[in-house]
């Protein structure tokens, strides 16, 4: 049963995501670093439940999670917007045709006050790419929605054997006190 509200009061988005990953047996974490994702990455590294792999490129992470899924180990790729922009070929030639429930968690950079010019331009490409490949995507903007969106997107991905992109909006992440 999915709760429509978050769990314990005061839980941060990264704490909630760790809980949702465990509830869905997401044991393999692959990531290419991102400053916004740093607290989540730190939490995952510190938790023995997870196998954490940090490859050189996001494409590699997609390959690893794809192989792991076919071998019976559930995983996810964590990345930032610019990292996602390196993926269209892998998504179009592997993820989509082979019907892989590839889970992606993308920290949305380049909007709502980002001063990195490259991030701002590449950000414009993210949703058009996801939508043109018909990949389920949804932005998480409020703490109250983290569990509901993440849990349901993960379950839908495995039930339908289709990829899912969870986008972490600055509305969620930039409001957290560091």
């Amino acid at each position, binding site marked *: 049963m999915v709760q429509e509200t978050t769990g314990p009061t005061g839980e941060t988005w990264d704490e909630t995501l760790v809980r949702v990953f465990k509830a869905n047996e997401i044991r*393999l974490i692959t990531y290419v670093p991102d400053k916004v994702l740093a607290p989540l990455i730190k939490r995952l590294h510190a938790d023995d439940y997870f196998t954490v792999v940090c490859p050189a490129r996001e494409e590699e992470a997609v*390959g690893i999670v794809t192989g792991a899924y076919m071998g019976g180990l559930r995983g996810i790729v964590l990345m930032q917007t610019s990292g996602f922009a390196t993926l269209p070929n892998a998504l179009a030639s592997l993820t989509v045709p082979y019907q892989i429930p590839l889970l992606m968690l993308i920290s949305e950079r380049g909007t709502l006050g980002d001063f990195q010019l490259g991030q701002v331009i590449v950000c414009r490409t993210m949703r058009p790419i996801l939508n043109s490949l018909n990949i389920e995507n949804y932005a998480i903007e409020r703490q109250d929605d983290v569990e509901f969106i993440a849990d349901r997107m993960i379950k839908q991905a495995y039930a339908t054997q289709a990829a899912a992109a969870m986008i972490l909006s600055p509305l969620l992440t930039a409001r957290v006190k560091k």
Partner: protein
Amino acid sequence: MQAQLLNPVGREAAKVMNRSDLTRRLVAKLKHEEAVVGGIGHTHFDLWAAGQRPQNFYMLGTMGLAAPIAVGVALAQPQRKVFALEGDGSLLMQLGTLGTIASLQLKNLVVIVWDNGSYQITGGQPTLTATNVDLVAIGKGSGLVQSVWARDEAHFEALVEATLTSDGPLFICARTDNAPPAGVTERDAAKIRNKFMEGLKVNTRGNQQTYAGAA
């Protein structure tokens, strides 16, 4: 693995062999449902032609991801030996993966590269290995201690036999000619995935049944 088998031979001294023949020699030695990920192009064509084992995965696209996919399978099923077959052109697109593999030290992973020095499927344009890149040297530089050129067919077979009973990761490079592949893979991605997952005894929700392994 015996040090003698890993005795260094440079690319120039390695015999130019035939990819279809080597693929058949590899497959003939797989008796314990070992997984094989065949990279894009003639690599997976020849894997297909060597016999459609349920534990074979054929990549219809995505240059450079055969090894990462094999890494994923190897992480998921530590009891199963997993082979990645990749071409030199594909591996050149994803060299960082050699470092990733070395960092993970997966005992059950073997990466084999067919190095014909060319993009054979697109008309034989030369790759960087035809002039100046030595993939075994890159493997070693990436931290893969067991990186080796196959000297000839007998050496290749000895390496495969040894790796079935000793710890990886192992990185084998074999020089190959530009003879055409022995067959063409059926182009049905969903069917390929389903058969592979059945072969690995995994359901589509990503849950695994038991596999006892080779022992």
